[in-house]
């Protein structure tokens, strides 16, 4: 489904970033980093209007010719970014949402691990597995 999945800390440094190995990893790093602009824009826009009643899912951050970048922000301002191939038209908003939910759940599990110190990069195998699952599906469908 996804070609790149990233978790970004509140301070905007990457906690976790993985992309499909066949493609240029660097390009995704640039894409995800740039998407933070829109994430911040959306957070501040939402913050003004709705207060604390805010939707975690930020929707499509920006489309490019080849990719669609979706964003999600947890209440602790940790950002999830999922990059999807534009040619993959089977993915609807709902699927993206559920991917983010899954990601969030797994991330919460990682944070609950007493041996994980928040702020460090994510090394969890379970989390890795969830992410792989989201990316493997791509390989099978496309």
């Amino acid at each position, binding site marked *: 489904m996804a070609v790149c999945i990233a978790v970004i*800390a509140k*301070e*905007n*440094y*990457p*906690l976790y970033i993985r992309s499909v190995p066949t493609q240029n*990893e*660097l390009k995704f*790093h*640039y894409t995800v*980093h*740039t998407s*933070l*602009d*829109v994430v*911040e*824009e959306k957070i501040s826009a939402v913050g003004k209007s709705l207060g604390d009643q805010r939707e975690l899912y930020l929707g499509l951050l*920006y*489309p*490019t*010719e080849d990719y669609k970048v979706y964003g999600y922000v947890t209440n602790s301002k940790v950002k999830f970014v999922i990059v999807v191939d*534009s*040619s993959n*038209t089977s993915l609807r908003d709902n699927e993206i949402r559920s991917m983010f939910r899954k990601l969030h759940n797994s991330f919460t599990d990682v944070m609950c691990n007493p041996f994980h110190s928040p*702020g*460090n*990069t994510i090394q969890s195998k379970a989390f890795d597995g969830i992410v792989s699952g989201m990316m493997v599906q791509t390989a099978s469908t496309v």
Partner: protein
Amino acid sequence: MECQEEKPIIYTMENKPIVTCAGDQGLFTSLYTSLAQQLPREPMEWRRTYGRAPKMIHLEANFVQFKEELLPKEGNKALLTFPFLHIYWTDCCDTEAYKSAVKEDMTRWQSSLRTHGSADWVIIVVETNDTKKKNKTNILPRSSIVDKIRSDFCNKQNDRCVVLSDPLKDSSRSQESWNSLLLKLRTLLLMSFTKNLGRFEDDMRTLREKRTQPGWSFCEYFMVQEELAFVFEMLQQFEDALVQYDELDALFTQYVLNFGAGDTANWLGSFCAPVRSWSGLLLRRPIDMEKRDGIQRGEASLLDLRSYLFSRQCTLLIFLLRPWEVTQRALELLHNCVQELRLLEVSVLEGALDCWVFLSCLEVLHRIEGCCDPAQLAANCSHTVGLWAYATDKLKSLGELCGLVSEKGPTSEDLNRTVDLLAGLGDERPETVSSLQSPYKKLKEALSSVEAFERHYLELSHAAMEMYRAIGRLRSARLVGKSLAEFYMRKGDPERAETFLQEALKSYTSEGWSLPVTHTRKQIAECQKLLGRTEDYLQTSALLAGDVNLTTEERKHFCQEILTFAGKSEDQSPKATLSMAVFAQLTRLQFRPATASVHSGAVLQAELTLRCLMPVSVHIQQLAVSVHFDLERAGTNGRSKGAPRQTNPGTVEFSQAHPSAGPASSSAAGPPLELDEIEDRSPTDNSLNSTGVVCKNTHLVMRCHDSASPPDTPNCVSPPSVTVKDDGQMLKVQDVTLEPGNNSIVFTAPSGQPGTYTLRQLYATVGQVQFVLPHIYPSVQYEVYSQEPQLTVEPLSEPLLAGLPQMVKFTLLTGHYAVKKGDALQLSNTDTMPVLPSASCTARINSPAAELVGESSLFIQSSEKVTSISLPATPPYHTLEFHLEVLCVIPHGCDRPANERLTNGEVRHRPRSYSHPDTPMTAIDQRMSIDCPWSIYSTLLALTFYIPFKTKHTLLSAGNRKYIQVCVQNMSDVNFTLAEVQLAEKQQATLELQSLNTKTQQLLCSKHSVFCLWEVRWKDDLPSCLQCIFSANFSPPKQDVSTFKPFHYQFQLERVTTLYSVRAEILPPASEQHCRSGFLCGLEVCITRLTEPTEGEAAEDSKTDADGLKTTKLMYEVADSSSNWAVCGKSSGMVSMPMAADATHKVQIEVMPLFAGHLPFPKIKVLKYLPHTAAVAIQPDPDSCVENDSLSLLDKVLDDQGDTASIRSRGSVHSVGSGDQQQQKGVAMPRLEPFAAGQVFNHSHTQQVLVLPATDDHIMEVNAT
């Protein structure tokens, strides 16, 4: 007149629903103006089918003359040309005329309508007063004509005939009729719309349902639905019109997607044709008829269809005042088209799509600019910036494709490609031919030459960057900047490129994105190399050499770059100073010895752990640590005071700041605080005035908080200018090879001068390159101290016992003083603590590390005043230890000799004994005064000794005979042997003390006592005062006689002589042989004076009676403390004793035994009674008060006893005591004084008497529990 002209229909906004007019054209013409004006004036509610929300709608109409050709033919789906209403105008009021002409005309009109199935018509009858007046004769009432018409044509549809009265007059009647006419027209129009559009929509839907059938064509359907959209647009229902186009859009998209999924529709074939034209969107015309025709003919390409569809959506959105939606949809469209072409596998010339996208982006932007003012545009950058960036991107790839970016310029191949691309653009559209800045012209120009391309590309890039910045999307701006930098690099302009790269790098570094950091840094390295900025390049190379994101080969390459430079000779290149952090990290520093504090001249080693980040091992010529020397806090004070600081642990761990990959934690926290403590001491007495903490690097810390710029961490490409501070002192190591990973390097620290040494900077020199760590933090210090010699004396074993020889340990810390041969310690001798000479006394010399260095014997010489101890030669900072035996003389007791002067003239401090809280033994402090060779002052030292014994004495009497008992208690933890116990009297020669002690030697165990007894014998008179000295020898058990040490105890006994004897007797009742409990018995107390009064006694406490006889007043008291007896009657009383030997006084008291058995006698106390005298009254000395207190105390005791005693009489003592106390407080009063221990001898002291139980008292109480 508009309605009468046969104009070709132009599909513009000006389209209005067509209404035909038949009948009297002249009449209509006269009314046309006001009709056209008034029709749209009031809105009408349009109720819609299919649950669509009703709308208020202003109706307009295009009135045309009725012609049969206007009526739609069967199967014609055109809606725009559809006449929605037919009106027949007449002002006929003449019946004849009606019958002859008008009716016929109307019938024709009706029949032609009917043949075309049009039921939307109305007949308007205009009547004016003028017409009535003109032909008065033929005038029928107005109603009759209308009625006729109604009956002729409108069967059951009376509303189809409307009367308009006096339309050209300004009267209320006329206005009213106008209004009703307009309302009628509007209603009819709407009805027509609803009916006809509904029918149309139904047809359209039917057509759509057929889309799965083979012959179905999207283009045909497109035309049908667009017709509907046109009508909605005509009715100004843009929203509805847009919906039609969106539906078409979605339908088409779905087909393309289905095609991707393998479900191919035949009609899609035309869209899959290779793209031949990429002229971009055209948004300047409301309807691009060219493209529309193409679609209608089924010849349109996918880009054509998309372009046309978007241009229509764009037009409608702009009508709806939603220009920003246009930009957003445009971006989506462009992305989507590219995807769709890919999906449909349409063959496209390389770069053609880029052209199309570029042109389209600019076209959309132009269109938006055309309908918004600049302020609005600026405020909505966020909507347009995406298009700008996209256009920039596309232009860049076009430039690269056409060889416009390279330094050399385009090749012929590139030029061919350019020509092909330009051919696909076709000719410029007529709309933009006159415009100088049309997208078409721009693209053509940009592709025409390298210079033009550069100009256009820069213009676009900067525009995009500016906009990104303006809306705060800095990351995006930097990404554009980076791509601009890449452009500059290809153009061979590294200088400009670097600026953009640095900016981008800053952002990546501050946010900890390692991969972009590495990539950007590599590009920067390339720039710097090209620019010849050696130092920067080396610094970047160093960073890259240690970057784990790179492959080993790349890292080695960069490392080699540094080493190559380092290998150059000095004249070839200047030295380069780089930041250490990128090369190696200082991880640990360990001092040996771990205290990091040594005396001056000693060896101190520092072991540095450096983690080398280079991929290969690096040979370093010199590794040095500069040291800052600080004398202020120098440890000149002795070791006890200022020496090794606890805050200075031997091992310092340095926190890790990752140079490249680190998450932003290090940068977010800013540089670590460098704190130092300050103390402000008063200059006079060195007392602390204030203390605080000072931050040394405030300027760095504060700067980071003020601005958001990342701190000067090693992440920065150009490190802060590293200043090499030369403080003179250095820790140096030559020729070290640093392997990748941890390296351990040992330095020997300078320790010449005493003071604090702070490690400041670390340098590593590799040929021409020097790596500098500008700040070692946390700050590392070591201390070199200089120490005064110090002499201490402490007991070898605790506690030191007085009276026995004890070993004490002398410890001499030489400090900076070297003990020479012949140096001696001079101890002033004292009587109370002599130094015992010993045969062999050895001194041990220890090094500072507590290792034994040497041993030598001491030479001790004693003279009368001093004991001199010759010391062996000892080097500085060593410890000299020896033991000496001393003896502390136990003080005798009360004799206090006058203060003596010591040899050095000091007043000798008498050792004073005192009780120590830790031990039951009495302690004595002994001071020693020692003259040392290194000081002109004497050293005073104190030792505490403990007296092992506690001695008590008692005087015992038996009638006139006297005994002295001495009790020696061993308080120490050691056993002793006590020998030669003796007691002597000092003054009375006649007195003889006969020892009753049998043993000569006795073991005195720890915490035990020994009692000794002597009988006092005298010849003439027993002196009232005895000065006794108890003496004994003691030693620890099982020791030779010679080791016995003497122990003395002095004491004084007073009032030794027995004055009175008291004898008591209990007499059973007269009839009985024994006492019985519960029966009164007699107690006879007999007090006898034993001696003649002495002089002192007579003077002191007797008075002469009236008859001249000397008497003493005594008070007796019978008290039974154990409740065995009940005293009946007086329990106490006063007797006057004549002061003569054998004077006797007898007292009878009745007592009653309370229990049966052998009862001890009640206690009889005899006290001296001192009647009040004037002398006493004048001088109420504190003793008397004490007496009073004791009296009242006694009284209280009696009171307590009285509770248990059932029968009790209050004696005079009580009344005297309490009465006096209350009445004459502070005034003279009689006193009671107890006798000294030996003065009264009680014969019946512990005597018992047998008491039988009462006769019938046979009840025994048994308590079983």
